[in-house]
């Protein structure tokens, strides 16, 4: 199975609610990144969190990283219809794979107006 696995695979919420997506991985990482992909478009970088960081914020986004549990979560607060997209976590495991990202299969988020 893949290094990064997102949970849930799909999430449907109402506008204004919070959305939480989780990512689990298997091997130690150098950093973990979250990306968003709107239908038919390229991926857009959201947040990068390094292995020595526990939490990062960017606007309505909050990312946590728990290296002991090999997991990360992405929280989108006060969601909007425009947040509807697929969200991917990607891990950089460093070492001989330094700089190469391994992506999970993504969480499809639907925000209903």
């Amino acid at each position: 199975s893949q290094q990064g696995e997102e949970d849930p695979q799909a999430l449907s919420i109402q506008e204004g609610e919070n959305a939480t997506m989780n990512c689990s991985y298997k091997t130690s990482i150098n950093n973990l990144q979250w990306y968003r992909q709107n239908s038919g478009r390229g991926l857009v970088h959201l947040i990068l969190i390094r292995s020595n960081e526990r939490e990062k914020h960017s606007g309505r986004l909050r990312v946590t990283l728990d290296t002991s549990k090999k997991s990360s979560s992405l929280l989108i607060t006060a969601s909007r219809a425009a947040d509807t997209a697929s969200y991917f976590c990607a891990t950089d495991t460093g070492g001989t794979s330094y700089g190469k990202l391994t992506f999970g299969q993504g969480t499809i988020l639907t925000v209903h107006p």
Partner: protein
Amino acid sequence: DAGITQSPRHKVTETGTPVTLRCHQTENHRYMYWYRQDPGHGLRLIHYSYGVKDTDKGEVSDGYSVSRSKTEDFLLTLESATSSQTSVYFCAISRGLSYEQYFGPGTRLTVT
């Protein structure tokens, strides 16, 4: 959007024909990547480049070759296309290792 373009954006080709996809950047970033995206597999790294004429294989490199003769251009070639290479191909750039990557708009390739 980061200055990344991909061409062509859509292509239909027949099995056994050679295909070249182009990625062009205006950001002068050193690192460039080619991924493919397939349902059930997410994005998988095909090849990447860490400088002009410096390339290395990714997770799914069989059947693909790359070249980078200029900082701004990274070419992906399918020497003899197969139906299993039907996919959406994304190029990405990065200013350094362990930095965020910026993605192009993608090329949808169909091999019949």
